[in-house]
């Protein structure tokens, strides 16, 4: 089979999900999870660039210590808008709503997700939230920081807090419906023979992230509702004038927002599992451990939230409890890193672009994760909380980790989604530029934080300038690294080589169907008889006609 395919140039299938139906109505009213994934791709790419513009403005402003670009109030809006857009409108939906939506039904052998109409609705809800967010931005912005701490946000600022809160509320509901869909699909729609122990790790990871979405986001919803009520009607339970406790807002906010970071990273880890196995031509080391570590991260992630509040005024006793638990949550992540590394050992490693991003992820996520442990230590946190150390930490895990995973996944499944190959040499160059730019941007920030530069300040002490300039220079390189994929992916749609069903010779049900897949995914329901990642034997999954 495979030898014959190698001598024949692959051709695009005649009918597939992209050309099955034409017209704007067929897209805006689609129920096909693949088309919805593409809709999300456009939306979140747009918000990535919006967030990126704010990031660029921040780094431009921070070139000089006296903050000559913006006034302090405007600078506050810059970092708030950057944070809100990147977190709620890019990172949280990125892998689940784009890659997950596209690939998970195919990975479990289903024709679609459990509730396609709810899937489409989740995109519309996202767009409503996006509209509110954009409206908030153009009508004056928000300047409270993405964390909306009270009583600043509930009583003092004159910016569009409520509008933004509503936007985030909608984005949150969108993620709830995506998570709900994934959970029901994975439980109830797996193909015959596809036991839990044979699921690709991408499914496990997205399933775990979906659990977090379901359990955590509603608490954010009620917190934002209470914030909006407090601000709008001057009733409030976070208001010290009434005897309310502003720290309560932080408890409720972080109860969601800490697990939210695991919503962001877990799907990325799922992507890495897929890429590392494929480009090492080897089964994953310790499948069960990697699978259960996703669940462990989801569960542990819920009991550590107050490590964001060590200096906010919580009791020392509870701070100790949360610090201890925060150390525990690092363990499952470490398990994954060890197992990926062990997977590569004695594997046949091929350094294609997705693998470059995966390797970048493993290294940078490790650094980010370890610095998280620094922050979990009570004594250290007193000094480095609210400094650039924290900023460097979360950018290492979120950008060095998550964005790299997203880009890696996008490259890995781009041929499947579009039927075209991206230009490999340019892509490799872009990956390298991104890696260099990223480290140049954010490594100096660890040092800055350690030296005491506070975050969210429009001005800084002159001795910090050199590192800030380095960081901004790195940001300009990073920007190039991010813009290049946007350009060559678009180019590949028209001029890219046809990919064929399985350009990487990967295992997994998604590679057994055409690229792009037909609307109904499979012509016959597959029956799974193999464990995942059965590399080495070069045999394919048995498909029973």
């Amino acid at each position: 089979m495979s030898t014959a395919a190698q001598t024949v140039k692959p051709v695009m299938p005649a009918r597939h999900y992209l050309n099955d139906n034409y017209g704007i109505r067929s897209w805006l009213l689609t129920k096909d999870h693949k088309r919805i994934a593409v809709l999300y791709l456009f939306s979140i790419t747009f918000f990535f660039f919006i967030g990126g513009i704010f990031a660029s403005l921040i780094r431009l402003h921070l070139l000089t210590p006296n903050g000559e670009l913006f006034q302090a109030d405007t600078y506050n809006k810059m970092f708030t808008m950057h944070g809100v857009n990147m977190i709620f409108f890019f990172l949280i939906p990125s892998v689940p709503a784009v890659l997950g939506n596209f690939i998970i039904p195919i990975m479990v052998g289903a024709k679609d997700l459990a509730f396609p109409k709810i899937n489409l609705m989740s995109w519309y809800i996202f767009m409503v939230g996006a509209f509110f967010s954009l409206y908030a931005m153009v009508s004056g912005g928000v300047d409270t920081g993405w964390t909306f701490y009270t009583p600043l946000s509930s009583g003092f600022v004159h910016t569009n807090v409520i509008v933004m809160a509503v936007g985030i509320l909608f984005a949150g509901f969108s993620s709830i419906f995506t998570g709900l869909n994934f959970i029901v699909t994975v439980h109830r729609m797996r193909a015959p023979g596809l036991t839990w122990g044979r699921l690709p790790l991408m499914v496990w990871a997205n399933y775990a992230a979906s659990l977090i979405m379901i359990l955590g986001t509603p608490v954010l919803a009620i917190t934002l509702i209470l914030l909006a009520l407090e601000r709008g009607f001057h009733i409030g339970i976070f208001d010290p004038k009434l005897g309310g406790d502003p720290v309560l807002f932080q408890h409720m906010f972080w109860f969601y927002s800490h697990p939210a970071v695991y919503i962001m990273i877990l799907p990325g880890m799922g992507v890495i599992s897929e890429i590392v196995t494929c480009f090492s031509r080897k089964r994953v080391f310790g499948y069960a451990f990697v699978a259960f570590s996703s669940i462990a991260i989801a569960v542990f992630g819920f009991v550590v939230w107050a490590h964001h509040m060590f200096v906010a005024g919580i009791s020392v006793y509870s701070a100790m409890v949360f610090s201890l638990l925060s150390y525990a949550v690092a363990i499952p992540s470490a398990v994954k890193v060890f197992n990926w590394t062990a997977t590569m050992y004695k594997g046949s490693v091929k350094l294609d672009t997705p693998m470059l991003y995966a390797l970048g992820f493993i290294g940078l996520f490790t650094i980010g994760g370890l610095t998280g442990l620094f922050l979990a230590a009570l004594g250290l946190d007193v000094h480095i909380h609210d400094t650039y150390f924290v900023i460097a930490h979360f950018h290492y895990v979120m950008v060095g980790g998550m964005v790299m995973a997203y880009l890696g996944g996008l490259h890995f499944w781009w041929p499947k989604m579009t039927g075209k190959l991206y230009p490999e040499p340019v892509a490799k160059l872009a990956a390298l530029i991104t890696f260099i730019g990223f480290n140049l941007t954010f490594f100096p920030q660890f040092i800055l934080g350690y030296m005491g530069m506070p975050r969210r300040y429009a001005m800084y002490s002159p001795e910090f300038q050199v590192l800030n300039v380095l960081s901004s220079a790195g940001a300009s390189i990073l920007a190039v690294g991010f813009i290049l994929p946007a350009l060559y992916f678009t180019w590949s749609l028209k001029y890219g080589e046809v990919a064929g069903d399985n350009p990487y010779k990967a295992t997994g049900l998604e590679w057994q169907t055409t690229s792009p897949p037909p609307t109904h995914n499979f012509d016959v329901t597959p029956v799974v008889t193999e464990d995942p990642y059965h590399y080495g034997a070069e045999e394919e999954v048995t498909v029973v006609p």
Partner: protein
Amino acid sequence: MSHSPTTIPEHHPALVHQFDSMEQQREASTFGMWVFLLTEIMMFGGLFAAYLIYRIKYYDAFVAGSTSIDVTWGFVNTLVLIGSSLTMALAVSAAQRGARRGAQLFIVLTMILGTVFLGIKGIEYHQKYVEHHIPGGIFGRFDAVSNYPGQEPNIAEEVAKEKERVEKLSPEAAEQASKQIAKQTEIFFCFYFAMTGLHALHMIIGLILMTWLLVQVQRLNIGPEYYTPVELSGLYWHFVDIVWIYLFPLLYLINRTHAK
């Protein structure tokens, strides 16, 4: 291209393309509804957690606030909602048997009881408006005694009397304490309105759902093979009932042994 061949010869009109059988569809839909209810548990739960923290912190104020809301109405409303849960369960049962008329009758009964609940809630809210217990500084007065003569019953007065009687405080200390408690009572009412308000919003959504359901029972050939819309609506309605089952003691019965 044809879809993957299903092994079931008959194709129920309500079977959607992504499922292979009505059984799978029903199981998935029911499970999906439960996952959604899980999110509702967490949303109300967040509110309940905040309530609990303040009840511990400001117990006296919460007692005062709780005492000032009408327990009889709360009790009646609880019975009304429990009744509506019964009628809803009977509606689901009827739908399952294919008794469409019966199902519609019970749905209408459920809606009537739900409306009665909302009506009583309206009466209670009006009472709070008249008594100036609405938080937010516009309609509410939570200051201490004597600032607003002719207005009654002033919660601060009740609290002051309570403090003097129970703790045998000196008049000045009692005065101070009662001022403080009166202010803190505003927090109780924030929770009262937030919790019952969110609940009432869910009731209204439930009534809209029931209206839609009445139409669906007619349109969709509800019967033993397919009664999912009724079952899922029932789950939603029962959940809203359960929230009230907790709201009643938590809001109305904090400590009724001091006053009626």
